[in-house]
């Protein structure tokens, strides 16, 4: 394995190379703390070990009799007090700077889902873009295989299908929220970490001074796939960013589905199969048999039920450990349900249309 630029290095001993001013200052603070602590530590323990060495009975040392001194106590209460104040001062400065999310150039909402990130560009250049960012499924399989370390790539568990793209040297404000449970959005090189709390928005910001790829992970326990929802931020030069935005907008327009389109079973099931592989197979398995507490879909009474709304409801609203999938488009939900209703031994012949899904939203 090699170091991953913008991500962890092999046997890395310290913080990531900073890509923002805040991260630089955090690294400085950390060094400052490390050095002061080490100095205090060495001072304190050189006294202790000196005493351990000199004042031993085996060396014939006789115990002294003192056991109290108010002066000394006051001194060694005040000195640490002063030291911690000196430590707190620079920390205050950095903290206040790190919390100032005003005047952002680009604002992006990052939504944590079990287990992927959704990005919506709200303000600034690129506003209106929106996509999901999921761990590369081959990496997830590699993880399951256990197996040999040698055949795992440098960006193992950090590769996503759609990285978050931002411009360099621009203040990017990230608004975090979550769909199901708490996640945390963090990128070490930017010195940023912010919990994503369902039902509430929080924010943080960064201004990357370097172009390149930067990696982070989900930092708050969010269920079984917690280790598999990485964050990949691609920082582009202003030009490249503009080009990327234009390109994305074109693609989005092309991808727009007509929600009223009426699909044929084979077409929609083929589409559903892909969506199933990307989103559902991690839990329900490719063969639809589930595993452990995860319900099997193959032969499931709900999937087989003639009442399509049952399946639609569970997808839209979740149930128990099953997360809600509201964030998928109507067509995608319709497709994946149509697929499950006809895959494996499920041969219902039912087709769910996007309009069926739309009709159930919010119910």
């Amino acid at each position, binding site marked *: 394995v090699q170091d991953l630029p913008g991500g962890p290095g*092999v046997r890395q*001993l310290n913080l990531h190379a900073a890509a923002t001013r805040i991260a630089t200052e955090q690294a400085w603070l950390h060094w400052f703390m490390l050095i002061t602590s080490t100095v205090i530590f060495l001072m304190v323990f050189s006294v202790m070990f000196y005493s351990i060495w000199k004042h031993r009975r085996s060396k014939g040392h006789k*115990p002294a009799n003192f056991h*109290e001194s108010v002066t000394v106590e006051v001194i060694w209460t005040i000195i*640490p007090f002063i030291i*911690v104040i000196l430590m707190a001062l620079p920390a205050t400065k950095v*903290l206040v700077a790190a919390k100032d999310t005003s005047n952002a150039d680009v604002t992006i909402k990052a939504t944590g889902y079990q287990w992927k990130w959704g990005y919506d560009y709200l303000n600034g250049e690129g506003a209106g873009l929106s996509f999901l960012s999921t761990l590369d499924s081959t990496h997830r399989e590699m993880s399951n295989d256990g197996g040999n370390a040698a055949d795992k790539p440098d960006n193992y568990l950090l590769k996503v299908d759609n990285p978050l793209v931002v411009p360099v040297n621009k203040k990017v404000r990230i608004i975090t929220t979550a769909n199901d449970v708490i996640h945390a959005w963090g990128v070490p090189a930017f010195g940023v970490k912010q919990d994503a709390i369902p039902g*509430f928005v929080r924010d943080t910001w960064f201004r990357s001074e370097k172009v390149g790829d930067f990696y982070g992970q989900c930092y708050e326990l969010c269920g079984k796939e917690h*280790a598999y929802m990485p964050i990949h931020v691609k920082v582009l030069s202003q030009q490249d960013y503009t080009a990327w935005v234009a390109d994305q907008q074109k693609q989005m327009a092309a991808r727009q589905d007509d929600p009223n389109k009426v699909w044929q079973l084979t077409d929609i099931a083929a589409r559903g199969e892909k969506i199933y592989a990307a989103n559902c197979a991690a839990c329900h398995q490719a063969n639809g048999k589930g595993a452990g507490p995860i319900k099997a879909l193959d032969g499931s009474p709900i999937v087989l039920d003639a009442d399509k709304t049952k399946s639609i409801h569970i997808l839209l609203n979740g149930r128990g*450990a099953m997360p809600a999938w509201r964030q998928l488009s109507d067509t995608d939900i319709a497709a994946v349900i149509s697929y499950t209703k006809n895959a494996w031994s499920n041969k219902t012949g039912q087709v769910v249309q996007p309009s069926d899904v739309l009709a159930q939203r919010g119910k």
Partner: protein
Amino acid sequence: MSAVLDNHGHAAGGEHAHDEHHAHPHGWRRWVYATNHKDIGTLYLLFSFFMFMFGGVLALGIRAELFQPGLQLVNPELFNQLTTMHGLIMVFGAIMPAFVGFANWMIPLQIGASDMAFARMNNFSFWLLIPAGVMLVGSFFMPGGAPAAGWTLYAPLTLQMGPSMDAGIFAMHILGASSIMGSINIIVTILNMRAPGMTLMKMPLFVWSWLITAYLLIAVMPVLAGAITMTLTDRHLGTTFFNPAGGGDPVMYQHIFWFFGHPEVYIMILPAFGIVSQVVPAFARKRLFGYASMVYALSSIAILSFIVWAHHMFTTGMPVTGQLFFMYATMLIAVPTAVKIFNWIATMWQGSMTFETPMLFAVGFIFVFTIGGFTGLILAMAPIDLLLQDTYYVVAHFHYVLVAGSLYAMFAGFYYWVPKWTGVMYDETRGKIHFWWSLIAFNITFFPMHFLGLAGMPRRYADYPMQFADFNAIATVGAFAFGLAQVYFFFWVVLPCMRGRGVKAPQRPWNDPDGKGAEGLEWEVPSPAPFHTFEVPPKLDATATRVLDARVMPERHEPVTGIVHAPR
């Protein structure tokens, strides 16, 4: 603990006429029906050691899975269950009950009381641990497996858990009830049952540390009970405390939890401070330096612990004023802790030190705990914590303070008092092997985790990027070595002592011929300590460390057991 296997229920060598009045049950009834603080203390210690083993095996499961990248042994669900149950069992099943065991054994002896204030309730506190322990261990076998939301049981993840979550919540209720009863018992014993002359400011520091800890417990255990009760009703009765769709707030759970959780971590360290404060003077042959300021420091730590909880929540997005407040308050705790460290060192200074195993563990404690304290301070700096929160740096921090802190202090206490408990000396060489082996293996396990955390490896991860592989492998090797050291400890040190194998312990094993060494009333009774001690309050000398006359109650006629006149 030779008494443990001695089916007479009486300490060996006791010609205690008095004991004949009591029909002590023998065999299993002696333990199940126990009202004797020493027996109950033994039960607590054995229970917690068993839970420590179980929690340790879970930890080894975690470490084995993390030995290499990729999932080899367990699936991610089970991994989260291991993490969660490891944390819960270690905290609530191992460390806390073990300290209560020490309290049971030593507090009555140290303050010259006949027993705990409420002997039956004392046994109830112990026996409550059993259903709770069975529940926690058994949750692995419930449908859906054990709770897997982390030991902090954050909502709303807990709302997704299976039935075992409810079992876990009820188990925690029971554990809380046990702790509250235990604490009330300890408080009352200390406040009401001290021998005349044992003023508060003459009490041994272990007693002080427990008095303060017990107050922390009765203040925060009910709060935890409240938090998990809300989780329970959110799960089943449709309340929306932690559900924003109904006006609740997941972060509110965290505030309530950490209002309990932070004092909780000091609950696990203050008795350790107490033990170390007993051991260091004994082996330095010099009185504890700065007794009064030690007491004040303990109290300040306890008081401050109520206003720092949100340092666990720096990344939840508090207003900056809140973050600053909690950062400052947290850093302040370094001051009283500094006072403690300095006083211990001043106690050693100019002493006449020897390094038997208890002292080794105490010095090891001071040294390694301080590393953990400093990393705590680094975490307390909110801007740095933004990088380190929920990474292995935190895991490293708290194992330094919990394993090398609480656990080491308990080892120190065990070696220090085991002659009094069992009447035999442990094997010194084996003790030393246990110490050095543990110390080295401990650091191999947990030191690399600092690097992992700095490099950003998140905690509670079943699998990790390749770059983290080497340090994880080292940590796993260390963990197994550390675990084996504890197995060695149990079979080669604890069991022989319990069987009574070994050199017979003198009444004052730690004292030089000139009388310098360990002080305190526990050394005024023979080894092993008789079944009943101080049935009537003894008359103490001015320092309250020596018994002048065991019979101050004039109306008692028969000789009182167990008190051997201290040869001066």
